[in-house]
């Protein structure tokens, strides 16, 4: 799902929510599913995803006054909170960080790395070598098909930086792949 630029209507909703947390309801309605799905792909099960999503929106409501409209999608701000909350969850609960792989989309990533159609299992061996922020970029770019612009907004970096980081990660995976040969 692409980030949604803030419409005038949404900007008005955000402003209302900043004055009164009860006015956050429409934003909750709009973004509950995208946030839940974003989290679900990274955690073990639906129940965990649901609990974390609630926590994310609690944080969003508590910090809505810190949000400023700088041309970034509101969803990107929510996803940023989501990444922080998930990181804390993984640290505190020691539960596994899940990487949900769509076979079709993953095949493209594999061919990007080694120019062949390879068993997807090689991908696991490669991805375990990535840091969390690198893994996020791979997931968002290849498995969720987000634009560099949106990736940049979510990770609070520029679009160009998101592009550069993505290609560096691919290079890193290529290097690791060669070491297996």
């Amino acid at each position, binding site marked *: 799902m692409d980030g949604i630029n803030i419409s005038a209507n949404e900007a008005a909703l955000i402003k209302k929510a900043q004055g009164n947390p009860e006015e956050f*309801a429409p934003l909750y*309605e709009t973004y509950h599913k995208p946030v*839940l799905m974003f989290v679900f792909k990274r955690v073990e099960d639906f129940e965990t995803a649901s609990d974390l999503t609630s926590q994310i929106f609690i944080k969003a*409501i508590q910090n809505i006054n810190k949000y400023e409209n700088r041309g970034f999608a509101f969803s990107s701000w929510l996803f940023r909170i989501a990444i922080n909350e998930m990181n804390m969850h993984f640290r505190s609960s020691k539960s596994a*960080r899940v990487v*949900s*792989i*769509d076979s079709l989309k993953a095949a493209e990533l594999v061919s990007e790395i080694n120019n062949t159609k390879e068993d997807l299992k090689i991908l696991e061996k490669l991805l375990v070598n990535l840091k969390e922020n690198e893994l996020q970029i791979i997931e968002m770019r290849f498995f969720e098909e987000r634009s560099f612009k949106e990736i940049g907004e979510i990770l609070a970096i520029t679009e160009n930086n998101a592009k550069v980081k993505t290609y560096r990660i691919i290079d890193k995976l290529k290097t690791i792949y060669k070491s297996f040969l």
Partner: protein
Amino acid sequence: MQNIEFKYDRKEPSDSQIESAKNFDAVLSKAVQQNGFSIGTKSFLAISAIALVALFTWFIFSPDEESSKAVITPLPGFDLEKESYKINVGQENKLTYPTGSVIHIPANAFIDKNGNLIKGEVEIFYREFHNPAEILVSGIPMTYDTLGTQYHFESAGMFDISGIQNKEPVFIHPEKRITVEMASRNEGDYFNQYFLDTVTGNWNYSGKDNFKKIVEDKAAVPVETNPSETLISKVEKPIKPQKEQSDFHSFEIVFNEEEFPELTVYRGLKFQVDKNERNFTADFARTIWENAAIARGTKEGKYLITLSKGEESHSFNCVPVVAEKDYQAAVVEYEKLFSQYKDKESRKLKKQDEKQKLLEAKQEKFEKEQLERQRRENEALKRFSEIYETERTVFRTFEISQFGIWNSDAPSLLPSGQSILASYINENGESIKMNRIFLVEKNKNALFAYADPAKLQFNPESDNILIGITENNKVCVFDQNSFKNLKRADKNQILRMKVSNERTKTVSDVIKLLDT
């Protein structure tokens, strides 16, 4: 490398599943309720009563929020007094606070706002906060934001330290540190140290807390061993000369005088075979030997001579002797030497004795200082106990580089387990409106303030009490038993509060309420 699990082509949750996970009301409720503070302390009751007395006045004299800074004193007239100490900065200073805390200030520790070293007299101000009452009155924020999460501080104690000279603030020299040994009632080892940035209102993490218990085992004194064995070098006792006897064989042997200085004093010295020696035969005297060696014998005044030639060698005890003609002169020399030896020995023994006495005096002084230290610490403990009604305490040590507010804290989350929507009535069943409501966890000595008196969350397993302040500034209480009788299943609860009859004026009035 993190723990990663790969899942392929997962089935996405259905729309109905997603819909069932939505609950904005619950999210909103938690978002509003997670907005209090907690403090872990001992001896809670009297102290929280003080806090509440302070709070009453707060709601009468509440400052304008828009002009508030990071630390504001909410209660004019209730601000905690600071201890004041005037010190001469040219020397080390050690200050003691009524709780027993000690502040160590090195010499020349301060500079002015221009970075110039301060001389002369400086006035140091110091105060501590150990319980909910003091912390509430102080206005010091007790929340800590990190990684997008707001935590509440459980405090093992805070202090506020500053200094002035001629009404101008002074600053700690960048190459110096002031050591604060803060007496604390909490013996937990899970606390960290923080410094309050009064501009942003944020706490800055300063490091892991360290503490020591007040009553320590007496440290072993590194007592020096008896120096008599080490200090006094071997005093060469002169050998009493003996007259050569014709019945025994004797030898003239060239020896290393540096090795046997005691033998150099006698002219014409020879080595005579000892009368008890059985290993010597007359043939040895007739043999031309290749080598002769001397060694000090096992008995005083005896020497072991070893004669050798090729593979053959013989050793036998000898005594140093002089010929009769040289004997008188040797005796005179001996007496002179012996007298010198006695003087030397006497001087060394005297020195040894003096050293021993010094050591004993040092040991005695050390033991006295230890006892005195222990006495002072026990007094501090007693003083601290009298103020804070506790029997055990520790010192938490801070090495501070700047004046301000320092804290020994552990971030924690609010209690949870049950949420209710509360409305309040008095004992007559009449509806009452709350200005503020506080949750007390008696078993943990913790105090939480809720932003919205209507929306409460708490841990139903804890020993809870609610303390409220009505819109008429009266104190009211929802006691422990009443809490236990709340039905878990009911989200909406009507809480029957015990309201004070008179406007609470004293701490003891509030304590009585809490005890009921």
